[in-house]
Structures are given as structure tokens and as C-alpha cells.
């Protein structure tokens, strides 16, 4: 089953999303800030990243840009998660190199759809 790197600073959200993804059979590794996200993206070689945009230390946008600098990870699927459904966040996330985005509160079926979509695009 695919390995997902979940980058999320809020403990409750982290717990919730990771448990529900694990319940669906995904392997989940966790990072709590942008810096850890960049390190784990390299060391854990996940199949997909769920990236919260509003992170401490290094924002999800910066983390995405840093990950994209590594040629080995330029095609790693990244889905941005934004807390505020602010218009414009989407553009910022996509311009930074995210493949897709979803807004919180997470609607699991919708997010799962996006995850599966990106994963299958990668394998095909």
C-alpha cells in the first residue's frame, strides 16, 4: 500500500487524518513542520505528501518549493491542505509546485479521491 507523508502541525488534525488514512490501509509517516517535511520527504521516500500550508518554522509553500529543488522529488505528488478556504491560496499552492489542493475541514471521501487520483496517475 502507498506511503503518505502527512505534514500537519495541529495535533488533533494530525491524529485524526493519520488514523483515518491508516484505517484505509495507507502507511502514514508524520512531519510537524516544514523543515521536518523536507527531511522526511528525502529519508522516507513517500509516494505522496499531504502538506498543510500554515506551518511553523517553514511554511508548507516553502517546504514544497524546497522539495521540488531536489531532482529526485520533482514529480512527487503533493496535495496542499489549506485551513482557510481563501481564494488565492489555491493559486499560491499550485504556483509553488503542489499538484492539487484541498480545504479543511477535511472531507475524507473527497480527499481520498484526490489521493487515489494522483497515485494512479503516477503509476500509469
Amino acid at each position, binding site marked *: 500500500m502507498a506511503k503518505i507523508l502527512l505534514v500537519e502541525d495541529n495535533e488533533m488534525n494530525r491524529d485524526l487524518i493519520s488514523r483515518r488514512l491508516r484505517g484505509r490501509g495507507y502507511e502514514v509517516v508524520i512531519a510537524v513542520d516544514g523543515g521536518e517535511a523536507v527531511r522526511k520527504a528525502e529519508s522516507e521516500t513517500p509516494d505522496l505528501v499531504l502538506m498543510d500550508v500554515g506551518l511553523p518554522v517553514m511554511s508548507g509553500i516553502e517546504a514544497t518549493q524546497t522539495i521540488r529543488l531536489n531532482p529526485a522529488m520533482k514529480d512527487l505528488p503533493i496535495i496542499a491542505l489549506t*485551513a482557510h478556504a481563501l481564494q488565492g491560496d489555491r493559486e499560491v499552492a499550485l504556483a509553488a509546485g503542489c499538484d492539487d489542493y484541498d480545504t479543511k475541514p477535511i472531507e475524507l471521501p473527497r480527499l481520498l479521491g484526490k489521493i487515489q487520483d494522483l497515485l494512479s496517475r503516477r503509476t500509469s
Partner: protein
Amino acid sequence: LKNIGDQRLSPRKEFLRNLFKNASRVEEILSSFEHLVSNSRDERALLAAVEKELSNAFGSPYSGLELRVLDVIRRQVGLLVENAQLMERVAAETASRERIKAEKEEAERANKAKSNFLASMSHELRTPMTAIIGYTEMLIEDGEDRGDESTITDLKKIHSAGKHLLEIINAVLDISKIEAGKMEVYIETFSGDEVVKNVMQVARPLVQKNSNQLLLDSTGEIGLIESDRTKLRQGLFNLISNASKFTENGQIRLALSRYWQDQKEWVSFAVSDTGIGMTPDQLEKLFGAFAQADATVYNKYGGTGLGLYITKCFCDLLGGNISVQSECGKGTTFTMRLPAAQAQDSIEEQPIEELQTPNLPKVLVIDDDPAVHEIVKRLLRNWGVQVYAASNAEAGLSLAKKYVPQVIILDVIMKGLDGWQTLARLKSDPELSAIPVIMLSILDNKNAGYALGASEYICKPIDRERLEAAILRSCPQLLLHSGMCKKA
């Protein structure tokens, strides 16, 4: 006025005292003048009074000296009154200016506090709700795995109450934003029919709850429109959700159309139901906030009564309107009408500039203010570079493709595509993505600029040194060129 009169009077008093060295009743007369001055703003009336006082004092006819003295006094008193009036006016104006300034500052502070409050509130309220709803969903899934029916029933109640609360929170936040003038409109071009299909899909479970059918009239269609996608979707969803709430075993019908009226192209979305309908009385207060027809409606049907008000506000924001027709017991039709395109203050078609010497290093300025084009041209006059300019994003993008510049200076706030969208396009175009872009803005928003791939960010008004430094940092080879030119 009394104080001012007193101050002004004392030097005059000295002057008069010298004049009347020998006149024994001068003090007496002057103090009566003081009284008159402090009680009168009318020069003519005052003079008449002075003359009367003098004639009482000296008896008539006046001697030649007395007449001259009288004339001096007349002029001095006139000045006195004018001065007093002037002082009073200046004092009043200063006070009112200061008051206006203070009021304005106070209003700005309050407005800022309000937006901050809104932003943090929406975060603070939504975060715990997200956890409540999310954990409940997870427990429901667990319960389903275990086949624990009785717990699932209760969890579903928590879940639906949580969802309802979140809806209310969102609605109240929407309304606060609308009323604070903070509701942003995000215009893009999209297919109206796709939005309709999407909303119908999302609303289907809601419609089926009361055993209703949701049908789309096949006759009309919307096509591409320029509007706010999210607000259109929310408005449509509100109307369908309303219709299905007040209809049982009936039909909800959506009819679309696109037409010209008053030299403008319009699109309309009509949602009709075969539900309970409304009386003329109920129709009247329909679009107010928290205005459900009456309390019994809430008890039976639930809901916040905010949806229609928000929908109406959205229609207003997008330059359209909403209307309703209803008959008690037969059904209701709501019609949303929106302009198919947003009236833009005519982005003029700009002919693409022909460059005389396309081989010189080039700096492209994209800014809707022609004054900025001129400023940059002037500032870079001695650099030996070619500065060329576009007044909107589209023209700028095609110019950049025609003559690839070494540096692009890009304004953030423009009509049509704004600077950020333009930047995203530049960065996604392989031919243009490597060109350094200097963002130009009246707002200090460096971080967004760098995140989006801008290489420099400078604030308006343009400062020569900062512009030069920014250009040199993003494109050092221009320095070499400018150095060579200066030597030559």
C-alpha cells in the same frame, strides 16, 4: 469672545490712554466699550453704541480733536471685532478638523479590529468543529466495522448536529463579512453549466431525503461566464436546499437561460419547487437576515434563515439580483440573475510596441499606470537598456514572448489578471519562467511575492536607489552593460 476681546483690547487701551492723557472719563468709557465688544459681534451696531456713548460723554457738537479721536476709535473697534470673529472661526475650524481626523482614525482602528476578529474567529470556531465532526466520522466508521448499530445512530446525531452548527457558523461569518464590507469577490471565467451539474450532484442526497425529484430543464444553457464560481455555487445550493426542505414527494426543477437585456448579457438560474409555497405576507420579509416566514416554520423545518439573505447579498455583489414568485400551497420559484460578464473598466486593446533596437538588453514594465512606465524609463535612461511597457497583463505576456526581456517589473494591482496571476503565468511558461520578476506594489507583502517566485519586491512610490538595487540583484549582467555605456 470675551477673552479674545480682552486680550485685543489691552494694547488698544494703552494707545487710547495716551491719546486721552487729559480726558478724565476715558477709563469709564473704555470699560463700557469692553462690555459692548464682549456682547456684540456686529460691527455696525457696536459703532452706533460707541458713538452714542461718546456723545453722552462729551456732549455735542464734537470738537475737531474729538472727531479725530472718534475716527481712530471707530477703526480700532472695527479691527477688534474682525479679529475676534477671525479667531473664533479659526478655533472652530481647527477643532472640527481635529475631530474629523480623530473620528477617522478611530473608525479605521475599529474596522481593522473587526477584520482581525473575523479572521481569527473563523479559524477559532472552525478548528474545534472540524475535530468534533472528524472524530465522529471516524467513530461511525469504526462502529460500522464492528456492526455496532445503536452507537452509530447516536454518533450520526452528533455528526449531523455538528454539521448543522458548522453551517450556522459559516453563515454567520459570511454575513459578518458582507456587513463589514470584507466579502471578497473573485472573478474568473468558467462554465456555468458545469457548476450547475456539480451542485445538482452534491444536492441530490438532500433532495432525496424528502422523496423529491431534481430535474434540469434541457432547453437552456449558460455557457462560459465571468463571475465568482464559489458564490454562484453557494447561491444555487442554498436555493435547491431550500426548495427540497419545503417540498415533499414533489419536483424541484432547474431552468437555465442566457439572454441580452439593456445592452448587457445575462444568465439566469431558476429553481422551482412544488412545495408549500408562501403567502404574500411571508414573501415580503423573505430576504431579510434571520427571516424565516415564522417561528413555526423553524420548528418544523429547521435551518438558520440566513441562506436566502446571503444568496441575495452574493447576487448584489456580483451585479445581479434575485426574485421570487410563489403561491401558497402550489410552490415557489426563485430566480437568480447575474451578468454573464463583469463590467471591467474597459481594458483597452493595446497595440504591441515595436522595438527599434531589439538587440539591446530589455526591461519590460507591466503596470496599468502609464506614469510608472515613464518613471522607470526615466530612472533607467542612462543604463543603455531598452525599457518597454504594457498596461495590462495580457499585453505584457504577449510582449514578453515577442521580445524576451532580461527583467520584468510587474505591478500587483491591475484590472483583469492581477500581478500574482500574471506572475503564476510567467512562471509556468517554460520560455519565460527564468526571467527575474520584480513585483511592484503599494502593499508590503514580500512573503507572498517570494513564495510565488518573484525575485524582488519593491513598494510604490518607486525609489530610484531601491529600483536600481533590485534590478542589479536580479540581473547583474545589466550592471556590466550600464557600466560600458557610461564609459562610452
